[in-house]
């Protein structure tokens, strides 16, 4: 066990866990931030996507000991009140089916829009290829990203 102080969604949070604990499980079990999901544990599904200093990162593949002072942003911290253009677009288009993958989808899409505020079809498919949606809501995810982009989702 070791003590770590993390910067999560703008707050300083201290945890005492094994150094190899993936950030995913620190968030879920220690910090009670369960929006970041477990789907595969090997970096293949994207359900655990969060941002480290704004870069989309697999929480399941990130040992807590490697996080340091980097800013951790999870779906809970993407906006204060669910008002990020992607969150609004997801509600407006009713993207989710089971919804389990959608936090990861939104976090990946948010990073895409930051880098490329007006992504084309190919840009979207390329950026989102690491995020599985078992319910196969891919068409609405594409539409949601476009709608958010139209509403300035990259800002």
């Amino acid at each position, binding site marked *: 066990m070791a003590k770590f102080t993390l910067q999560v969604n703008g707050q300083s949070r201290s945890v005492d866990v094994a150094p190899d604990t993936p950030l995913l499980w620190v968030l879920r079990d220690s910090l009670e931030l*369960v929006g970041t999901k*477990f789907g595969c544990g090997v970096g293949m599904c994207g359900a655990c996507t969060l941002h480290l200093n704004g870069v989309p990162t697999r929480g399941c593949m990130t040992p807590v000991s490697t996080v340091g002072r980097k800013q951790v942003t999870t779906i809970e911290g993407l906006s204060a009140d669910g*008002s990020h253009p992607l969150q609004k677009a997801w509600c407006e288009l009713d993207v989710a089916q089971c919804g389990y993958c959608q936090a990861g989808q939104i976090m990946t899409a948010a990073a895409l829009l930051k880098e490329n505020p007006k992504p084309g079809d190919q840009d979207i498919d390329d950026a989102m*290829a690491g995020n599985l949606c078992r319910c196969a809501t891919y*068409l609405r995810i594409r539409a949601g990203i476009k709608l958010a982009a139209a509403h300035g989702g990259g800002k």
Partner: protein
Amino acid sequence: MSTPTFANRSIDRRDFLKFSALAGGGLVLGFYLKSAGSAFAAEVVKPATGADFKPNAFIRIAPDGVVTLVSKQPEIGQGIKTSLPMIIAEELEVNWKDVVIVQGDLDAAYGGQSAGGSRSTPNNYNEFHKLGATARTMLVEAAAQTWGVPATECRAASSAVHHAATKRTLGYGELVAKAATLPVPPTADVQLKDPKDYKLLGTRIGGVDNPKIVTGQPLFGLDTKLPGMLYAVYEKCPVFGGKVVSANTDQIKALPGVKDAFIIEGTSNLSGLMPGVAIVADSTWTAFSARKQLKVTWDEGKTANDSWDAFTAKATELSKQPGTATVRKDGDVTAALATAAKTIEAAYSYPFISHASIEPQNCTAVFKDGGFEIWAPSQNPGGAQGAIVSQFGVAKEKVLVHLTRSGGGFGRRLSQDYVVEVAAIAQKLNGAPVKLTWTREDDLRHDQYRAGGFHFLKGGVDTAGKVVAWQNHFVTFGSISAGRGNDTTMALRPGSGAGLDGDQFPSRFLANCLTEQTVMECGIPMGPWRAPGNNVFSFVMQGFIDELAHAGGRDPLELRLELLSQKSGGNYDAARMIAVVKLVAEKAGWNPKKFPRGQGQGIAFHFSHQGYIAQVAEVTVSKEGQVKVDRFVCVCDVGAQIVNLSGAENQVQGSIVDGIGAAMFQELNLERGRITQGNFNEYPMLRMPDAPAQIEVHFLSTNNPTTGLGEPAIPPVAPALCNAIFAACGKRIRQFPLSRTDLRWS
């Protein structure tokens, strides 16, 4: 764009109880539903005051006008938590923004609560109309009495009752106290709305949990957290049903953070409590880490040498003999084949696949005072209770089941293996709450699989290209088991979803048609996978129909319509199918000849789960054999009324992409009695770049009962796709996944 509204939100049960207790004087309409059978006539509960609040209520209206509706069915992504309450809200004439939805726990007062077979809508549709209409009738009566006018002069609309003559209005909240004193009218006196007056049904309503989903609030089984909760993993034998001989549990118990480790003897029930070793720790990761040190000696049992390759060879051998069972026989196929102008033969096959719901199986339980309380992402909470009752010999009343949202179901969560596992662990811990988390590897290697299968077909056409003979010998998988219902005789029977009945089209539509079946005994757990059986049978039947169309020089659409017009039988309404087939051809602009080589159009239809579905696929196949799905057009007849247009369209689009993914990529291999794949790196699933650019969904409303949409749209997907691939490049797909067929062309 609107900000996600929390007005029509879902609240959890604790909030609901709190809220109910605060809202004294609310009108509670409780309806005991008969749990047996689908036709649950409402027996009436006495009107209750706030103090008398009963959790068997579906409807609660508070003095502030907030309407709380219970969603009793498990939500697994099929949208039922939104759609069933919409039915009540429609009849209740309540503004949707005034509605709060609460997830019901398992409760006999709600009637059946299993979400399977696309039955949630048809089983509840009529009754939910009555529930809403009854409440509305009482509110109208309350207003009429308040004003001293006849109820017939009053009208409910927008969460209020209006008296037009005197221009008076009373909001529902204001009517609560009065309505709560009124007797509940007999159902016969309650007038349902005329469908032409629907304001909510058939519109697009966003899922009630959407605001929580997009902000990452706790909702799912795996999000469950209880005070003092421990975290468990459970290791089972990689060969299904293998027993534990010994394990280094003492060594595991000594690891930091590990609270306990023990062997569970288990049973031989492959969908129940299988033998294994439990590790309980202070966090999920501690449990996962400790498991890496676990060493178990297994008795792998008698299936430890089984392999897919051996089963494939055996199926081919068996195909040379007649089937061991005749499923259905019409006319004389042998004679018809002998006199046909042209005959063809084909062998179709498909592998075992996993449900791979994105949320791995998990469940939380506490065992206290001789009873269980569980929090289950389950499609079948009653089944979960029943499994615990029979496994542990406790009374039904001693098993409380809370329902969480599920991260996908697809039939997987109808099985209770993960539920009884956590219950066994909780019982050992005696008092401490514990959450069992399966890894993805557990999930892929211990699924209740969609069965693989082999079909050996012969068909004949006459000189006009008319189908005159059809023979299918199905070689499938099964085990020695009891029959359905009261049939307790033990015999070799097909596994769940692995039996062919005599109703699969074109059976019943042809004068000479033979369906035979041979079961190969295996030790692989099988379970319902979205449209069980149908999801593969349609691939076979609609593929071979296409082959016969080409053999006879007929247009695949025209031949299908001819087959459908021959005769029909049982519960298959050929006229409904003809209508959707014609409409999909029109919507898609059916004209296979217009496509250049390398592009093609394919058509298929299928009836299952009371739904009549037809689809046209358009694909491009590159010279290198790469398939790109350009477009899907789908027409569905699921009766008179689409409940939630947004949810319905999402289900159909999802089914189409799911069907493409299963056909293109999914395959499990069995070697030495075990599944060789462990995670998504070895078990590819469809990702966004392979999803079609365009999927058009049309609903054909017909004067038939409203039925479900979770499943029926998936069976025609694979054959429409494969028929389009044949049209594009002349390569016939008779085997899943697609990668097993060389699609290169020049």
